[in-house]
């Protein structure tokens, strides 16, 4: 589980990284809103934690920008402000939750876990990229044609479609799709990428998954 943390107070950031890492999360820490947007554009995160008051770009604007780009990663605001209006602004900007400072680490972790549990309900049932529509409920993709997908193929395709043009490593893909499987190993990623590639060809899709066995894979729209 990967978290993007944007918090400009170095002390607090360090403490959060230590606690979250201890809880088993892997954390990328950045210190202003612009950096947060850049990181979120290129990386794959399961959750984002943004401070509201940050240099260069505040947390609310950063999240607004990301949501406008189609980023649907669950987000939580840390806020020194506890006025009702400020919390409303944050939630309206696309946040899924907020926590007023000072907060207890225990509560933060409980809120992150709760967001993760709800994540599937937030995901749109249909995702479109290029000519292709993925229906996560029907487990099918369609373009010129439609074709059924297996459960893991749907998960993997969803991940690619929510992260167009991003280079996703075999490890990242594995951790996101197969993390709850006991007997899986990273070889499964190449096999499933192969399944998806042939299925995309079969429906005459104008998107394709680029990359080599064991390396990074990127979903691209073919012009």
């Amino acid at each position: 589980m990967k978290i993007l943390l944007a918090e400009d107070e170095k002390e607090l950031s360090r403490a959060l990284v230590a606690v979250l890492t201890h809880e088993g999360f892997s954390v990328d820490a950045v210190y202003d809103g612009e950096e947060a947007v850049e990181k979120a554009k290129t990386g794959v995160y399961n959750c984002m934690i943004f401070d509201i008051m940050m240099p260069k770009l505040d947390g609310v604007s950063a999240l607004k920008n990301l949501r406008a780009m189609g980023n649907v990663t669950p987000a939580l605001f840390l806020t020194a402000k506890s006025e009702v209006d400020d919390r409303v602004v944050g939630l309206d900007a696309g946040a899924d939750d907020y926590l007023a400072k000072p907060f207890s680490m225990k509560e933060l972790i409980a809120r992150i876990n709760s967001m993760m549990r709800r994540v599937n309900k937030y995901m749109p049932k249909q995702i479109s990229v290029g000519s292709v529509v993925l229906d996560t409920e029907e487990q099918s993709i369609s373009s010129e044609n439609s074709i059924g997908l297996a459960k893991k193929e749907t998960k993997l395709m969803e991940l690619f479609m929510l992260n167009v043009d991003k280079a996703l490593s075999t490890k990242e893909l594995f951790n996101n799709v197969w993390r709850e499987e006991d007997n899986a190993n990273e070889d499964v990623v190449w096999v499933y990428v192969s399944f998806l590639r042939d299925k995309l060809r079969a429906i005459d899709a104008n998107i394709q998954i680029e990359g080599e066995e064991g390396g990074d894979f990127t979903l691209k729209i073919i012009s």
Partner: protein
Amino acid sequence: MSIYQDYEQTLHEIADDLIRRIKDNNESYYAQNGTKVYEHLSCRIKSDESMREKCQRKGLQEDVHSALVELKDAIGIRIVTSFVDDIFENLEFIKSIPYVSIINEKDYIRHSKPNGYRSYHAILEVTWDREDVKGNFPGKYYVELQLRTIAMDSWAALEHQLKYKKNVENQELIVSELKRVADDMAACDVSMQTIKNLIHKKQ
């Protein structure tokens, strides 16, 4: 007298020669690769009765010109394969037969029909050392070729039953479920091919 008149003999000659060549190709493919390039091969000359019925249905005169020139499926060949790529392997072979040229192709595999039907259709023009209806020598004859996988074939058989059975209960539901199954079967066909390629490292 049959609607095909004296040309019926030529239809049989052409069908027999095509079948022989397609079978021979399967055998040499097997000798080379240890696997067959198709599972079933069937061929029929459209019966006099159904050809006349088709002429009527299409508003054509019931004569030999309609049967051999206007309609191009007096000879029908169907090749059923295990894997999707084998369809194109067979197609390439048929294109390489010297007297064959393909005048029309429809790829209902990549562009399936709305009901889920998948198959590859081609109309072959055969140049044969016999006179044709128009008096050309050598003459031009036509063959309808259908290529599909076993999965597509059994799906088509089921859909055929639906088409010819009247008053099916829950018609709409059955039609939409049939479409879903077509997409699932296509998914299996594609995945079988992917696995085959992974085994042989062709990805």
